[in-house]
């Protein structure tokens, strides 16, 4: 079975920036099989919140079987708000690993740019670790930063902030355009960022993969809640729709319309 649902013990949780939480859980079976760019579903205890929360995998420690999940806490009525209160030793139900991640095998010996915007940055960390090529990261933020030191472990890091509080003032795609052209791009972040990036990559004939986000229910491809537009008729849906949860969340920029 490639997906398991289990009760995981919380190793630690801390707020690493305003409303950005860094949660580490023991989930050995999931840690063993998870791939870069995949996500897990976390379940809240509040039974009036039915749906699991899809959260990208930030990092994996295969030695001790732990998963690191970095996510943004929503307002007080959200599931992530409840998750943010999990303490060391407590338990959380998790299902994973889910979705199709970044094709890191394509990165071998290439100059690869990892592009992350805001809460799209976390999945780029483990992705960077699994790349056997030259990695450069372009991280875009609003008015505060996080995970920069971690991202430095996988390669050179360039930072852009909209407020100008750190690094380049502006967005990370503008910054990236000023540098040498990569051979491959992996990205996760808000849609406008991904759109600008995909346009740049298409214009310059650069292979690009983007991780998309959409409201999900089942997380395993059954409910068809989380579709995105595909350029061609999809073999499964038989229409121009792909399922973000199981055909993605990572897609080639050539497959999808943003």
């Amino acid at each position, binding site marked *: 079975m490639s*997906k398991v649902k289990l009760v995981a013990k919380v190793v630690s949780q801390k707020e690493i920036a305003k409303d950005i939480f860094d949660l580490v859980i023991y989930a050995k079976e999931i840690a063993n099989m998870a791939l870069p760019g995949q996500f897990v579903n976390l379940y809240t205890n509040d039974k*009036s919140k039915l*749906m699991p929360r899809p959260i990208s995998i930030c990092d994996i420690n295969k030695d001790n079987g732990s998963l690191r999940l970095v996510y943004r806490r929503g307002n007080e009525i959200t599931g992530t708000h409840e998750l943010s209160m999990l303490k060391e030793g407590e338990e959380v139900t998790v299902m994973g690993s889910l979705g199709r991640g970044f094709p890191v095998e394509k990165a071998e010996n290439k100059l690869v740019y990892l592009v992350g915007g805001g809460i799209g940055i976390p999945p780029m960390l483990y992705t960077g670790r699994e790349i056997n090529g030259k990695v450069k990261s372009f991280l875009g933020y609003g008015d505060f930063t996080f995970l920069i030191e971690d991202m430095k472990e996988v390669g050179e890091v360039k930072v852009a902030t909209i407020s100008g509080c750190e690094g380049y003032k502006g967005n990370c795609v503008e910054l990236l355009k000023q540098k040498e052209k990569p051979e491959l791009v992996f990205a996760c972040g808000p849609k406008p960022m991904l759109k600008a990036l995909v346009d740049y990559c298409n214009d310059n004939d650069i292979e690009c993969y983007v991780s998309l986000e959409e409201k999900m*229910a*089942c997380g395993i491809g059954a409910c068809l809640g989380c579709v995105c537009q595909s350029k061609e008729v999809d073999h499964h849906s*038989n229409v121009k729709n792909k399922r973000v949860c199981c055909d993605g969340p990572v897609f080639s920029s050539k497959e999808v319309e943003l």
Partner: protein
Amino acid sequence: MNLSVDLCGKLLKNPVLTASGTFGSGIEYSEFVDLSKLGAVVTKGVSYEPWKGNKVPRICETKSGMLNAIGLQNPGVEVFCKRDLPFLVEKKATIVVNVCGKSEEDYCRVVERLRDEPVDMLEINVSCPNVKEGGIAFGQDPSCLSHITEKVKKISKQPVIMKLSPNVANIVEMAKAAKKGGADGVSLINTLTGMSIDIDRQCFSLANKTGGLSGPCIFPIALRMVYEVSQNVDIPILAMGGAESYREVVAFLLAGARAVSIGTANFYNPTVTMEIIEDLKKYMIRHNIEDINNIIGKVKEI
């Protein structure tokens, strides 16, 4: 101990089915569930042509429930017959195909196409609230409902269950209309039309504005409607609406349903159907029930 029930002339292993639209065509859940152990798999709605469905966001969580406005996205009956049906046959599932359409002809073409396929039963969706021509007109007017039931029955080789909308003033009238048209059974309830507004962004939560409400929050409404129909119309009922454990299943059976479909609960517990079947057996032992049929319609006044 006997868990098997008769639904429209077809003997099901047990009264636990999946609700259309919540179980794909079984493929996605086969990793979690032995499809042959279910009473039946009720497939996602199948139309003649492929349907693209609605714009996203299509999903919104609500308290103890969810709204969906998928818009009946499906690959069309040809792909369904070539890919999904053989899979279900191979898994030895009992197969109920949910049929959707935009016109009477549309429904009839799907039913015609399925005539000689290995399908055990049809569930005709005349109650999707999310597609303008998704059959809701047939599901909200008794004479339209009788008419389309009659047309479908003329063509179908399999027993026909009409899936009714709860978004009507009188569910009993609708069930009577289905029976008048010759339906072998009725399914109730489909989702209730609802809405959600995101107050931070001050916009609708769903691209479609409205969606179908499902999940535990609708169970009491579904139970009341099942009871009303069972009291007033002599027709087999497949119940659905918010069942997430054996408790709701038992309540539906006591209210008069022959079998129960599990819907939204699959989304948050992929193995829920298997758990319910096991828990039903325990309930029967606890209450000394030899045959599950002995509780159907047997609710007593307090």
